[in-house]
């Protein structure tokens, strides 16, 4: 298999090509712009056989994707931040119509103030939209998870759209060696796209996304809920099959040095690598610390989280997002997972890295220090890391 030096956006473009995507409607937005650029280039060079639709907005991009997917063809787009916000209405229509669209997201902060850098607020904003969520740590994962997303989305027991998040710049604009799979192997993994859902067909007219009265609406929502539950096993199966063909293993949740760890970081996305490096460093200093990485956020891997953290005394959730009025989104999910569990660990939410503030080894060392202190005493549930608290308090007042 050829190794190529690729940026994150190029990895997802190659994934689109290898998945034999047939329609790519897209509207450029930083930091995702390289995706439509690369796809256009691949099509223009004759390397990719697909229709590229340059539309006038993100709202139209996803609307066009729905139209394309409703004819039964494999469809992909990409966006970020404000673009995803603008798509919000259409996200629910895509999942409600049960169309297996895949979308790459360059995870970026939301305005105001305007900021183009890494932050996972944008996809947390669409947590409840009925899309499956994958998150990449590296550009290799961005490519692999995009291909896997098609496999899961198109499964007849799932038929839900999927997004694949990669942090702005840290992945989208960083170049890394990526093992680009052979076409025949991806063909073997994905197979020919089946028409396993109702499609637009003039010979068999049907209505899509229709008006539904109260006596039927709940059944549509319940079917989405069930489909997302089915996705749990379908994702596991897809990961296993991918590993068999490509030799790269994935799981919804994966651990590093978890067995005897008193304190566990929970991370998602590109922040994970630096956390792993910190765990190695702290282990050398004799600290009992480990790391849990979330690769799939929807469906939320509740059982896996409970199982993998069973020996931990403190869980330090790292959130690159914040829901003002409560906490970060991952904390909310992790804490809720333990609702009916008896011997639960202490769970602390650490907010950091918003709007592209660099997530450094020192930040994780600070998180570890505070978590260790919390192990034996009281602690604040939500703590901000690497933020100038004093200057904010001068304006807003202290709590």
């Amino acid at each position, binding site marked *: 298999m050829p190794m190529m*030096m690729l940026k994150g956006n190029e990895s997802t473009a190659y994934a689109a090509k290898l998945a034999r995507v047939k329609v790519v409607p897209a509207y450029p937005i930083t930091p995702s712009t390289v995706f439509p650029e690369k796809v256009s280039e691949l099509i223009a060079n004759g390397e990719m056989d697909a229709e590229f639709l340059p539309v006038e907005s993100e709202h139209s991009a996803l609307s066009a994707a729905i139209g394309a997917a409703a004819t039964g063809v494999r469809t992909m787009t990409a966006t970020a931040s404000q673009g995803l916000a603008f798509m919000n209405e259409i996200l629910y229509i895509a999942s409600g119509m049960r169309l297996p669209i895949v979308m790459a997201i360059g995870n970026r902060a939301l305005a105001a103030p305007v900021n*183009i*850098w890494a932050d996972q607020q944008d996809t947390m904003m669409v947590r409840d939209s009925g899309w499956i969520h994958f998150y990449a740590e590296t550009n290799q994962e961005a490519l692999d998870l995009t291909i896997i997303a098609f496999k899961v989305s198109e499964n007849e027991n799932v038929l839900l759209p999927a997004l694949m998040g990669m942090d702005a*710049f*840290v992945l989208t604009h*960083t170049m890394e060696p990526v093992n680009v799979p052979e076409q025949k192997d991806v063909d073997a993994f994905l197979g020919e796209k089946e028409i396993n859902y109702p499609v637009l067909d003039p010979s068999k007219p049907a209505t899509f996304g229709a008006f539904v009265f109260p006596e039927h609406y709940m059944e549509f929502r319940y079917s989405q809920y069930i489909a997302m539950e089915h996705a749990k096993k379908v994702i596991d199966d897809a990961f296993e099959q991918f590993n068999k063909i490509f030799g790269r293993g994935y799981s919804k949740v994966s651990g590093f040095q978890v067995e005897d760890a008193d304190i566990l970081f929970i991370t998602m996305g590109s922040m994970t*690598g630096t956390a792993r490096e910190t765990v190695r460093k702290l282990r050398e200093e004799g600290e009992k610390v480990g790391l849990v990485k979330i690769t799939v956020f929807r469906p939320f891997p509740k059982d896996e989280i409970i199982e993998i953290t069973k020996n931990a005394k403190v869980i330090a959730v790292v959130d690159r997002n914040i829901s003002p009025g409560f906490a970060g989104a991952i904390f909310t999910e992790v804490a809720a997972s333990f609702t009916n569990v008896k011997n639960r660990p202490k769970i602390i939410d650490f907010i950091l890295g918003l709007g592209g503030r*660099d997530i*450094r*080894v020192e930040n994780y060392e600070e998180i570890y220090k505070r978590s260790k202190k919390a192990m034996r005493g009281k602690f604040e549930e939500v703590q901000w890391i690497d933020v100038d608290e004093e200057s904010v308090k001068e304006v807003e007042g202290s709590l």
Partner: protein
Amino acid sequence: MFEIRFHGRGGQGAVTAANILATAAFLEGNDVQSFPFFGVERRGAPVEAYTRIDNKKIDIKMYIYNPDAVVVLDTSLMSKIDVLKGLKKGGYLILNTQKKPQDFNFKDYKIAVVDATEVAVGFGLGSKSAPIVNTAILGAYAKAVGNVKIESVLEAIKSSAPSRAEDNAKAAYESYNRTILGW
């Protein structure tokens, strides 16, 4: 792990230099990363780019704060920007300049110099007023630091230069031969 920071101005090719160096080190079997300073690039404005090289898997994804080497594509930046910031003691400083290593008073660092501008102009890379010196300066890097062979740099240029690959490779080789080491 070996970390390099490039300083240049938008249009000189600092980001491409970081990518080509990463590619060259990758060709020698290393794991690598390269990335620009994340932001908005403008022609003529100061630009930073970074490369990480390691013989084992690179996990870390933060910025580079304490580089082992600093490469300066445009020494006019040095009056405005502290290009030495965070550079490890004994680290490499590779400068595109007509001056000699002893003309600089940085005794904590290994200084290597080359007139990459003259080399680039000689091969018609960019224009006389705005030469593209990124490939030329990489020849100096290979000579000074030596953790990436010049042959790999030339191969990386040939496989990834968007245009004029041969001239770019020749410029790198010419710089390699002209580089003056100050130690």
